[in-house]
């Protein structure tokens, strides 16, 4: 596809993408009469559902060779139809009548944080390594060539085996590039600033869906959950002011921001949305809400490789918490949970199909999850110091002579994060207090949220344990905190439920 749009058209394209995705999600959600929600929650949920559906069905289309312009055109029609459906059933009116009981001060805080994060995302064109090269480059491929199987991506292997095309992380999911390409397609041209429109609202939507997910417990619980989530600095930036007030000059620059075209915040927002919807689906119970919950988590799998791992943990947490099988909850709640699981599995299939055809050069963790590799590092295997930059150039012989045990590094890094108040506030200490509270263990919903958080942390610890790269270098690049960011939604829900309900009943109603 040729670029036709000038700056103003590309702006219009970006501006159009947001309401279209919002409409697309609005009609898919259950009626606001069945699952009550306020306007704010509805907007957050609808937008996340629209993004997830576009990512999942866009990936499905690409996996089966449908050119991107056709995917985009069908999406526009689908979004309009979906929006019409939501309007016809009177969702807006129902949402308007549903109270949130947030005080003006809290509304102001949430509005400033949400709208400010969107404004800062769009304040500059894409301006970080990963968003430019891992994601936007693939967005350009989709926009210009219509398919990820174009030589621009597939040609890295090179027909001759020696020379080929350049692309970083060729087997990364295409959710973010699809959303960027959608905005570019609507505007008729690629613009590094305006293609970010569909990526500007993750931080704004996350507290809204946490509120939604907890509303059935009490409005006070929902308010606490939303505020806990919105106040987590990592939702916007990590290690801010770590170097003192001199860091103010770098606000919004550098690679410490979570906002914009990175893949981590989308996973966090979609996982939070999936958790919120499933909590409400089980409480109502509502099959449609459960299926959309599954699709939201599947949407996370289409955003970044870790999203697939998180989808697996989500499914396992449901299984092991008893939310699917144990008789302690209502039968209908258990039944709708199976729908969520089914939608999740169906939702990640397109990406798994497409992924199998993409070249892999550096991000293939599945091949590293071998029992002997895990046993090696758990048994005290040394850090891969030979991959350290200094060692590679013949420096730091002391590191080579006396490498640390990796199993000691991994928990140390997670431990540092739990008490890194600059990035997390008190979120993680509060989560660990809540995890040990009897109320969390007794309630099946809290139990699966707890298992999701613990399982997520353990899985990421395992990933770091087997990583084929030099771990301290990954640490410098913001890992594991970028992984822990994915869990902010369920973590905030656990904290809020513990805070508001010290003697939590086992019922889900």
């Amino acid at each position, binding site marked *: 596809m040729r670029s036709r749009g000038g700056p103003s058209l590309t702006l219009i394209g970006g501006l159009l993408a947001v309401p279209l995705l919002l409409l697309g999600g609005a009609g898919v959600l259950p009626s606001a009469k069945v699952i009550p929600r306020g306007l704010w929650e509805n907007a957050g949920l609808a937008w996340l559902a629209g993004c997830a559906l576009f990512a999942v069905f866009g990936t499905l289309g690409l996996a089966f060779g449908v050119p991107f312009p056709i995917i985009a055109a069908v999406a526009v029609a689908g979004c309009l139809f979906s929006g019409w459906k939501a309007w016809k059933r009177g969702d807006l009116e129902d949402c308007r009548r549903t109270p949130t009981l947030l005080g003006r001060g809290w509304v102001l805080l949430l509005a400033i944080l949400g709208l400010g994060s969107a404004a800062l995302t769009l304040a500059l064109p894409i301006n970080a390594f990963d968003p430019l090269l891992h994601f936007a480059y693939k967005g350009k491929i989709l926009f210009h060539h219509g398919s990820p199987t174009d030589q621009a991506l597939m040609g890295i292997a090179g027909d001759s085996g020696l020379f080929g095309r*350049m692309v970083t992380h060729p087997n990364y999911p295409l959710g973010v590039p699809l959303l960027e390409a959608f905005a570019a397609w609507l505007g008729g041209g690629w613009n590094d600033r305006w293609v970010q429109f569909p990526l500007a609202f993750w931080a704004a939507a996350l507290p809204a869906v946490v509120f939604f997910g907890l509303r059935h417990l009490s409005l006070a619980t929902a308010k606490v959950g939303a505020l806990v989530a919105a106040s987590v600095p990592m939702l916007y930036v990590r290690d801010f002011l770590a170097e003192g007030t001199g860091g103010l*000059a770098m606000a919004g620059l550098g690679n410490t921001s979570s906002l914009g075209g990175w893949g981590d915040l989308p996973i966090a927002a979609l996982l939070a949305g999936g958790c919120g919807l499933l909590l409400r689906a089980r409480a109502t119970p509502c099959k449609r809400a459960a299926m959309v919950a599954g699709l939201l988590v599947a949407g996370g799998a289409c955003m970044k490789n870790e999203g697939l791992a998180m989808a697996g943990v989500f499914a396992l947490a449901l299984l092991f918490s008893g939310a699917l099988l144990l008789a302690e909850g209502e039968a209908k709640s258990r039944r709708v949970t199976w729908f969520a699981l089914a939608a999740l599995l169906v939702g990640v299939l397109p990406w798994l199909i497409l992924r199998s055809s993409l070249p892999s050069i550096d991000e293939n963790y599945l091949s590293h999850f071998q029992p002997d590799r895990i046993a090696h590092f758990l048994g005290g295997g040394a850090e891969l110091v030979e991959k350290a930059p200094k060692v*590679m150039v013949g420096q730091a012989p002391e590191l080579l002579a006396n490498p640390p045990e990796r199993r000691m590094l991994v928990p140390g890094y997670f431990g540092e994060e739990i008490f890194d108040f600059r990035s997390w506030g008190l979120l993680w200490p509060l989560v660990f207090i809540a995890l040990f509270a009897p109320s969390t263990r007794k309630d099946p919903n809290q139990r699966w949220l707890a298992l999701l958080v613990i399982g997520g942390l353990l899985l990421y610890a395992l990933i770091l344990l087997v990583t084929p790269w030099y771990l301290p270098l990954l640490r410098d690049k913001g890992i594991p905190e970028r992984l822990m960011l994915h869990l902010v939604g369920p973590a905030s829900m656990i904290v809020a439920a513990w805070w508001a309900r010290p003697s939590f009943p086992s019922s889900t109603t």
Partner: protein
Amino acid sequence: MPASWPGSWRKFPLGIHLLFSALPLMFLAWGLLGTAGEGFHRSPTLYPRPFFDPEETAQYLVDSWKARPLPLKERIVAVWGLADAPEGGVDPESPSIVLALALARAGVQIRVSDPGFLEEAKPLLGERVAFFPDPMAALEGAHGVLLATEWPAYLEVDFAEVASRMAGREVLDCRAAWDGEAVDGAGLFHLVYAKPSYPPWLDPELLAFARHVKSKVGEEEGILMVPDGRLGTLSGRARWFLHLNYLLFPRRLYLRKPALACGTSGQYREWVLDWNRERPWKGTRRLRLGDRALSGVVDASPIRSLTPDETKALATLNADWVLYWTHNSDFRITDWECVPAGALP
């Protein structure tokens, strides 16, 4: 009271947690104000001022000059700017003072100039250096000019005149402040010794070169990227091919062993080490193809003859252009040349 106690103590950590929302509020406010100050454009000026380590820079320069035919004692270098910053002051710790003294002690003939603090600098520099109120006069017969303070007057200098006055061609930019395209256009070597805090994709010379290639190479055409010889650095910043690949899309850019070059930083280092170990450029020779398309430094072109593998790749990949480069952590227009494949012998 006991019944409500648990609920009450929970408010305390929650309240503390909510106080941390001040951090994102500050981040968003400062981020928006900072970008607004630059008209919401991504540019190097958004980032902190590039700096240099005077002792390290002096040592590097002296070592590299020692390897040249011109004896150190005969080398004349004009140092422009002595103040810490424009409108700043001078003291014994000022980077430019330390640098000028270190070079002078090594035997280099140093001529200094500063529009505001020349008199104040005299007691600090003593008689080791020569003082020039007129910066252009300091250039007469000099082998290089070094920018240590980015005074506005220095940034507006006419480099054609600089080139005409100097005996040498080295423009040593310790503040990454000079317009590299203008310096190169005058046939001078723009050598940046500042440590830039801005990311590589904002490098002005990279962007100028990308514009140049876009104006020459059609969107449907292919470009084979070829290093001119040994890769001189392992610095990740030298992965300019990744940024050109993004900026020049949808033009097709090809590279040798791209899976390594585009992998993690560790894989990229392996790619560099592999290239230098295998020496694929061995047996090639330097070529002169007339005037250079963008660079004004005609005698430092990276063009070389192609290896049989590269020639074969040109044909099999249907590439129309060859993009040569000298591998450097600083993007210098001098190091890059894009030539039509048909023009190569």
